[in-house]
């Protein structure tokens, strides 16, 4: 039974996340732990349900095991529905052959029949690697009011950062008149957030046309949006002024985690009207020992903290033994930090053990050559032996 839906969301979660290195060897980027008790995909999924969108297709391709298991039947996000709900959509074989998703547009193209079953007026296309809280419904209202074919959410970024983004050039009515990808001399500061709303009939036609063009790279930014502009479709920019961050790199992942404990950054996880949901690990409350010191940090269930923790994100089931010190770091689920170990400006992967008196990363002020400094990363399911050293900026995949 397929009830008509006004709007269906398609979440692009197939990216390998190769710039996250050791953290995405066996896990798709959207399933990377974030903010002590979440995974990145919790943010777009929670935004969907909080915006009243209850039909979500999650397009997966790379290392989908953990992601599939995490999404499950969608119940933690209230997306286990009789009509709609969340569906994991991997590439599949058809009578005419089988193809991997060869681009963002191709991934949606291959799932046209999924979308058609709900006969929606609109489709929201989302990315699985952004941290933000956004009411898609407001954007949809804007899309409808503008009678647009496509609406692209944009963020006004500082001029010096604009050349890192896809930049939208608009007229005074927020109509998109031109765009440029990572321009050296940006003509505007409106950066695309990778969030699109399309009128489905229009998008459907452009997806099919793009697929017939063998030369096309089958990408929204490179093909669909330019094709629509050339054909004279109405494209508008929807200005978003909240917190938004792409967490595609080690540095941005680390920064976005730290943003959660920065009182000056406007992302509030404690707002009961816009909860971010996640799958619950079923663990007891966090146990804080008699000699523990914790400040300016977030800690979640199942943790046992006996050492010092400052400016850090401590995920579920982490153990920090007595005398261990954690500064400006992210400890992912199940990490164990043994006695006397010091973790500074680092990311420690899931179920990884840091041996006694080991030293992971370093503070930037202790390194003279700033090019040598960066966030240290210790990958998932490995161990660093007692007294082991992981230099700043180093990325470790295997036991040392």
């Amino acid at each position, binding site marked *: 039974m397929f009830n008509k839906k006004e709007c269906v969301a398609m979440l692009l979660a197939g990216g390998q996340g190769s710039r996250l290195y050791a953290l995405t060897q066996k896990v798709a980027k959207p399933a990377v732990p974030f903010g002590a008790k979440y995974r990145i995909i919790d943010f777009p999924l929670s935004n969907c349900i909080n915006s009243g969108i209850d039909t979500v297709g999650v397009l997966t391709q790379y290392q989908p095991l953990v992601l599939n298991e995490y999404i499950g039947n969608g119940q933690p996000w209230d997306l286990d529905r009789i009509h709609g709900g969340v569906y994991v959509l991997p590439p599949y074989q058809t009578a005419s052959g089988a193809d991997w998703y060869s681009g963002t547009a191709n991934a949606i193209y291959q799932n046209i029949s999924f979308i058609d079953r709900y006969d929606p007026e609109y489709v929201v296309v989302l990315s699985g690697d952004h941290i933000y809280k956004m009411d898609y419904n407001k954007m949809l209202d804007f899309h409808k009011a503008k009678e647009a074919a496509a609406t692209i959410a944009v963020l006004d970024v500082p001029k010096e950062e604009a050349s890192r983004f896809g930049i939208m050039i608009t007229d005074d009515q927020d109509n998109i008149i031109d765009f440029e990808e990572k321009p050296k001399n940006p003509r505007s500061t409106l950066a695309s957030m990778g969030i699109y709303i399309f009128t489905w009939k229009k998008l459907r036609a452009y997806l099919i046309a793009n697929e017939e063009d063998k030369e096309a790279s089958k990408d929204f930014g490179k093909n669909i949006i330019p094709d629509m502009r050339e054909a004279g479709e109405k494209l508008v920019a929807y200005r978003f002024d909240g917190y938004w961050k792409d967490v595609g790199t080690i540095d941005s992942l680390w920064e976005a985690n730290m943003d959660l404990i920065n009182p000056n950054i406007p992302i509030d996880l404690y707002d009961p009207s816009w909860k971010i949901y996640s799958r619950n690990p079923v663990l*007891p*409350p*966090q146990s*804080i020992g*008699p000699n523990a010191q914790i*400040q300016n940090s977030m*800690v979640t*269930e199942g943790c046992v903290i006996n050492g010092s923790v400052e400016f850090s*994100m401590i995920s579920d089931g982490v153990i920090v033994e007595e005398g261990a010190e954690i500064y400006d770091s992210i400890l992912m689920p199940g990490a164990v930090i043994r006695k006397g170990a010091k973790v500074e400006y680092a990311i420690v992967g899931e179920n990884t053990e840091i041996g006694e008196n080991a030293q992971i990363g370093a503070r930037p002020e202790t390194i003279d050559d700033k090019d040598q400094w960066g966030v240290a990363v210790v990958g998932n399911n490995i161990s660093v032996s007692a007294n082991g050293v992981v230099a700043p900026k180093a990325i470790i995949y295997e036991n040392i």
Partner: protein
Amino acid sequence: MDVNMGNVLGLVFANMHDTTLGDITKNRTMGSVLFGGRYRLIDFPLSNMVNSGISEIGVITKSNYQSLLDHLGSAREWDLARKKGGLYILPPFGSVESTLYRGRIEALYGAMSFIKCSRAKYVILSDCDVVTNIDYKPILAQHIESGADITAVVHTGVYTSDEIKTSTVLNTDESGRVSSVLITPEISGTCTLSLNMFVMSMEFLTETIKDSMARGLVSFERNILQDRCRDLKIMTYEYENYFSKLNSVSSYFAANMKLLDPENSQKLFVAKRSIYTKVSDNAPAKYDLDCTVKNSLIADGCIIEGEVENSVLFRGVKVGKGTKVKNCILMQDTVVGDNAELNYLITDKNVHISANHILTSSPEYPMYVGKGASV
């Protein structure tokens, strides 16, 4: 001995011992009393049954069960939202001639239509007053092997008169068979206390209920355990693991505080035998700049700006700047303003303590602040 837990029915009494916790159970069942930072007492028997392999459980309620219904919901969190079996909530069965039950037998009689539908061969009964992580498999195995009519889970130890006067004492012969029963006696010293968990066969249970009701007998402890211990074979199962028996506000306080010692909490929260509870989707706990937290159990959703020591903070508790919280149990969504001082305090849900207040009491009689109160 390998036992098949697939043919066991679990029955949990949510309301037994409601009077022992004073105001904490004024508006809720014993089963819905908050415990250990994020749990309610019923989570323990339910999780224990589920972890022992029981997948058909009835919860017998009597009164004030709204909070219990809210907590249990569809029972998905305990993995009991099943097509076969699952969780059944059994409120008092209202018929023209029936009243609220007066004893365990009458309560079971009220649930007879449910019990009769079960195809289980054995029944495990449990109250909600004992907090522990127990495996029922070896108890059922002993029950079957010994050929007992009833197996009662007990613990032999040195108890104060306060602890004994709300309990049932089972005296046994050298084989472990119950020879005499004392109900809420005023004694102290070494004795064998019932932990209010019993195993029996389905046949024995249904026959006993029918027979007792016909004779107008309503109390399981008095009319079955005590009066018939000579003609029935009632065996004890000595339980040696960690547990807390709650029978007063001060024992409730002490049982929470015991969890601050990792030796104890590791015995209650065992990795492969999780204690399940309702998920409430809180953000992680946030420790602010200049906060100090020592020797405490903290749940998600807490925001701590002040000092917390030797305390249990439930989900969503807020502690203001300059505030000192020591030896306290602050239940869900308690908000403490800035520069307050709390010592030996139990606050119920949604209590609001405004800035600069000083509330102190003693470990023997911790002060209790009722649900939703503003101080």
